[in-house]
């Protein structure tokens, strides 16, 4: 990616976010159900309902509401959550690190498993055992993350109760950490007991998210390896006296990585989307879990804040993927 392209991408971010904001805002108000209906006690008078509506500005025309909200967001104020009665931005900042850490851990596990499986698969290329690898990958791909979450929960939480099945950390542990990035901070500051306790809680939801993604990485990488191995430069390396594992690792792998990162990197957005259900299943306190509550309660300001947060994450992810691909492929670097 050259500089011009990078600038173009940055310029496109605000209009993209604006578009997302319009869509969510309008959809929320067109779809039946509103936050007031969810919070009023049975038997409240019309006048009380009207007053509540006015309090949250829901009595205004949509355009007016949107303009007000947009003005606030532009100045960093995402409003107050109706159901939790807290500042939306503070809620998001408190919960987002939990989701980011979970997604990062899941991605790392997936890449580790995926690369390993792809390398085994390519080494077995053309042999009968290749089918075992392909079959395993296909099976992992066929089971979605939330189903893995349930399977893992039953397996290691209930049947063989090895691991905790809910929350981010035991409440009795004194964290006294400065940021909300518990895992990253505890690792960086050398407090490995806390890191270990955190990982204990994270491993099942992370695995649930990681398994289908690992299969995706494995399939993409294996196909890319196979394609690169058939290229002239890899064939010629054989005639230069390199062994096949040598060629796969040094000639083929750096080339196969490019399409794998380009196609697979973007799929991390799927994994992020998967956090919604998986966090719910493991009662993990991230923004995915919060999103479900927000939707149930028709908490308009919170939903809007959450959707924008996810949008920013997706955009950032796409940018990072493009940057990494550019680093991997010299042909893109020099135009």
């Amino acid at each position, binding site marked *: 990616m050259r500089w011009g392209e990078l600038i173009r991408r940055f310029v496109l971010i605000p209009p993209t976010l604006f578009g997302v904001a319009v869509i969510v805002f309008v959809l929320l108000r067109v779809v039946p159900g509103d936050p007031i209906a969810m919070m009023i006690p049975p038997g409240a008078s019309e006048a009380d309902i009207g007053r509540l509506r006015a309090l949250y500005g829901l009595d205004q025309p949509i355009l007016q509401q949107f303009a007000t909200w947009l003005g606030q967001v532009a100045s960093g104020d995402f409003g107050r959550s109706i159901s939790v009665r807290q500042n939306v931005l503070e809620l998001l900042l408190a919960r987002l690190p939990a989701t980011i850490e979970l997604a990062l851990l899941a991605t790392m596990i997936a890449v580790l498993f995926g690369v390993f499986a792809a390398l085994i698969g390519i080494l077995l290329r053309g042999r009968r055992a290749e089918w075992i690898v392909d079959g395993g990958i296909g099976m992992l791909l066929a089971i979605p993350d939330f189903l893995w979450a349930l399977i893992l929960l039953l397996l290691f939480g209930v049947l063989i109760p090895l691991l905790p099945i809910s929350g981010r950390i035991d409440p009795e542990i004194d964290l006294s950490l400065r940021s909300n990035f518990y895992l990253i901070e505890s690792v960086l500051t050398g407090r490995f007991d806390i890191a270990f306790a955190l990982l204990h809680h994270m491993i099942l939801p992370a695995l649930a998210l990681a398994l289908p993604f690992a299969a995706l990485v494995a399939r993409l990488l294996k196909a890319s390896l196979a394609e690169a191995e058939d290229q002239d430069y890899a064939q010629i390396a054989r005639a*230069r*006296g390199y*062994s096949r594992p040598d060629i796969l690792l040094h000639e083929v792998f750096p080339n196969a990585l490019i399409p794998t990162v380009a196609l697979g990197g973007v799929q991390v957005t799927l994994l992020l989307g998967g956090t919604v259900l998986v966090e719910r299943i493991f009662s993990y306190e991230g923004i995915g879990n919060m999103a479900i509550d927000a939707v149930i309660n028709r908490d308009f300001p919170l939903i809007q804040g959450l959707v924008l947060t996810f949008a920013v994450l997706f955009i950032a992810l796409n940018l990072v993927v493009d940057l990494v691909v550019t680093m991997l492929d010299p042909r893109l670097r020099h135009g």
Partner: protein
Amino acid sequence: MTATLTVDGLKVAIGAANVLRGASLEVQPGEVRGLVGESGAGKSMLGRAVLGLLPSNATITSGRIAFEGRDLLAMAEAERRGLLGRRIALIPQDPMTSLNPVKRIGAQIGNLLRHHLDLSKRAALARAAELLTEVAIREPERVLALYPHEISGGMRQRVLIAMAFACDPALVIADEPTTALDVTVQRQVLQLVERLRLRYGSAVLFVTHDLGVVAKICRSMTVLHAGRVLEEGETANVLTRPRHAYTRALLAATPRADRPAEALRPVPPALIEQLWSEAYRLDDVAVVGAA
């Protein structure tokens, strides 16, 4: 004297198709042998069989391939890998696809040198720069730091020629190394091959359609047809007194300035002599730098 390369009764099958049906040839030390024949005759398969590059669905059903008297097909994998790239080298057909696109030229030549010769990283790079100078590339240090897409096709083919001769090979197999290049570059590449094989004393098996090229640079030639050798011998003899109708047809199909393409007339020895001596005027190899 042991032949550098002996291919004896080689049969190669791909599925039900017999692509080589008992082909035999010899390349003596320092000899440049042309391997000619129409498209599909099996020329590339023969070269690939020697280099261990047959497609995975191809099988050698019988025959022998020996390098300096040692049976390549029977020897241990590790021993064969020690010869390939070092004593037996390849100049590939398409310079655009034959270099690794994500690795610098210096890394590609350097790795090869270090793989076969016991060199330090620094020594390998120094030797790589020297090799680039030998293939008439200007500013070799700068070119070493470039990626393949940053240099022209002609330059890439020079790099590949440098890599072929990097470890002082006894045999170089060149499979149509000039077909992907334009005519002026073709000539320079041929002259480079000629210069380097003289310097390193390597024998060359030169696969080509082009009888003009054979007349220029090959002392001897082998004519392959449908997986079998039809005719072989000194180039001058084969071209002037082709014994086989197929060779005559090949000759007739080679367009020349002095006659219409269809006339079945032997090439005058004088012309071959002229082409031959032209090939040895090597001092006019152009020196090129990075574009």
